[in-house]
């Protein structure tokens, strides 16, 4: 498969870009932030997203979705990255759609997927517990109780957890933190007794929540996939999420870079355009190269998720690691090359820096994924 978008994918990109740049430029996020919006994104815009088929992009056609693949999800994520549009696309359309499609029973699929594709159901994935992404360290307990389970524990960094109609939770039914086996995924209705949700206002003005589970009773029907063997399913869901976030970071990098290059061509100092200074030219050229190489790696990972799902660990690790370091460099250079104005809140560049930092942490930062790669390669 060629590492370029085909015609349909390019058309999808153009329509996503058109909608997003029109309806949700950075000013949209700024307004939500400045008005302390209770939800943090626009329900109206999300409905439009669903009408255009984006919400159910990964949902199979038999459940009312578009039945497209990860490359297409990546295309949309990249456009989201360009304007930092807040939406439940990652949590719901990428993570939950993947979780339900790959792990759901027929009953679970028919209960949730159609609603998800219509934009009527928002779902979230609750994995992280500590300051860093370490799924293997999951400590949250799920103890058998009657013919169901009782959940106890706490989750953080649950993207869109504050507005979810459904939370997909990773918990331990066996083993100890640090062990591979013993993880199980549960579908939890956040209105269940004992679930406490705190919306966390984050540095990037996007949404996440901390969720505490106090003796939360769930039925056996709420198990997604197999008991004790949820690790592999979770790994697959996370890999799709990682590649999607990597795509968002490519969008962030390209947009921050594009704005920087434009500035280099208009800002004058010492009687010259600052873009004439070779010191800045070379840094810009380095960054361009770095972004191009990352784009290739991310596209490779997305394609492999669509064609060779079970062998994508290394490709995803490379993509997420690269995307993290590239986006970090892109936003740092953007602020630096804009000089003082880059530090002002009034100017948009800072929004990219904040979002890049959050994306870096989401589902493992550069160091986490380099470590994964080293482990996979056996050294």
């Amino acid at each position: 498969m060629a590492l370029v978008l085909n015609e349909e994918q390019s058309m999808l990109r153009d329509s996503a870009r058109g909608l997003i740049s029109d309806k949700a430029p950075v000013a949209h996020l700024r307004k939500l932030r400045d008005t302390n919006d209770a939800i943090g994104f626009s329900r109206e815009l999300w409905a439009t997203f669903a009408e255009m088929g984006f919400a159910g992009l990964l949902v199979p056609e038999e459940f009312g979705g578009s039945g497209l693949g990860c490359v297409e999800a990546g295309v949309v994520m990249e456009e989201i990255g360009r304007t930092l549009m807040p939406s439940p696309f990652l949590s719901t359309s990428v993570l939950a759609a993947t979780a339900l499609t790959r792990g759901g029973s027929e009953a679970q699929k028919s209960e949730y997927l159609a609603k998800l594709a219509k934009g009527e159901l928002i779902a979230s994935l609750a994995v992280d517990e500590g300051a860093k992404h370490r799924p293997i360290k999951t400590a949250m307990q799920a103890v058998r109780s009657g013919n169901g389970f009782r959940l106890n524990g706490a989750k953080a960094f649950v993207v869109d957890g504050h507005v979810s109609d459904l939370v997909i939770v990773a918990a331990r039914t066996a083993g100890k933190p640090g062990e591979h086996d013993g993880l199980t995924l549960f579908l939890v209705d956040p209105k269940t007794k004992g679930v406490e949700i705190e919306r966390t206002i984050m540095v990037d003005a996007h949404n996440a929540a901390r969720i505490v589970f106090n003796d939360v009773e769930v039925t056996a029907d709420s198990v997604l996939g197999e008991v004790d063997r949820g690790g592999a399913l979770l790994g697959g869901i996370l890999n799709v999420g990682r590649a999607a976030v990597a795509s968002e970071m490519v969008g962030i990098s390209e947009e921050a870079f594009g704005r920087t290059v434009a500035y280099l061509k208009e800002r004058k100092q010492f009687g010259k355009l600052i873009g004439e200074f070779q010191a800045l030219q070379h840094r810009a050229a380095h960054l361009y190269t770095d972004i191009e190489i990352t784009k290739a790696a991310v596209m490779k990972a997305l394609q492999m998720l669509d064609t060779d799902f079970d062998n994508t660990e290394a490709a995803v690790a490379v993509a997420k690691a690269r995307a993290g370091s590239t986006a970090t460099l892109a936003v740092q250079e953007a602020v630096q090359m804009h000089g003082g104005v880059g530090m002002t809140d009034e100017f948009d560049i800072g929004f990219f820096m904040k979002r890049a930092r959050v994306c870096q942490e989401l589902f493992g930062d550069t160091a986490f994924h380099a470590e994964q790669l080293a482990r996979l390669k056996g050294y």
Partner: protein
Amino acid sequence: MANLEQFRAETRAWLETNCPPEMRKPVANDSDVFWGGRNTVYSSEPQRLWFERMRDKGWTVPDWPKEYGGGGLDPEETKILRQEMAAISARLPLSSFGIWMLGPALLKYGTDEQKREHLPKIAAGLIRWCQGYSEPNAGSDLASLQTRADIDGDDYIINGQKIWTSMANFADWIFCLVRTDFSAKKHDGISFILFDMASKGVSTKPILLISGKSPFCETFFDNVRVPRSHVVGTVNRGWDVAKYLLQHERSMISEVGERRGTRPLGQIAANSIGTDEQGRLDDPMLRGQIAAFDVDEAAMACAAERAVDLAKAGQGHPAYSSALKYYGTELNKRRHEILMSAGGIDVLEWESPRSNEGLTARSWLRTKANSIEGGTSEVMLGIVAKRILDLPGA
């Protein structure tokens, strides 16, 4: 698609039968690399067999037309052949500046006669070429070259000096930039010309490198007579040919990171340094460096693949190869710094069988040229800044 799958299966089977086991091992020294030419000798029987079998299939240049000794493969098939060769760590059957640089330029700018004369000999490894671009005062600023070609009847008389001409002392022919118009602006008076290194008036003098090898030469032209028909492309428009060739040279050099048949860095380091109880390299800082390197190297391989796909889809930029040349060469230097750290004391021995006569150290030193040859990293960044990013200032 089905055809491609069949092509892959057939290719795999053919390689399996025809690539001798000895040709699937990493290259141990320079004589393991086959360059062809009038005076070559094969270093071993397997080297000869492998070369001849590949040549007979046209697979020394798989994507060239069959009429010029190529394999006539389309880009997808070529990619598959490369992948299948890499999968068994097959060595290149023939290394050649003719294949990597001159061939593409001739295919685009050569006359029918020039193509028929030169391409089949390149494909068959009969003629070994060298590149006469740089001069003592024209390196990064290549267009300021001064070697002159003056018309004399049907011939040019060439006078001047080239420098850093890689392996000129082994080459049969040279592709050379000469000034044919001294009154024009510096880019407009250059021609691209081909001639035999055995011509009267050509002499070479090797220059020793820090790696202890001498692949370079100073090359002198003293009234060398060359037929005017040997100019490739239009007279005085040689800069176009030169630039086109440089794109190919840069793509070729950017692939230095794509190693064939060498073991992964992590494994090399683990063998040398040892591992802890959990099987991790017993040097956490070095392990981290290797992991970061592996991330970048894997991404670079994707980018090299994508460059081909972009070009095929008509979305490539002519200066794209400069970006990849810059990144690939810096990456390869990093790889060799890590190899030196991983090897520690053991690879520092310069003359000893234990260190394979300093192979690692010599390679490490050689890689420092990657970011100089074919245009320095600084020059590549300048090209990207101006040609791709369109930043101001000449």
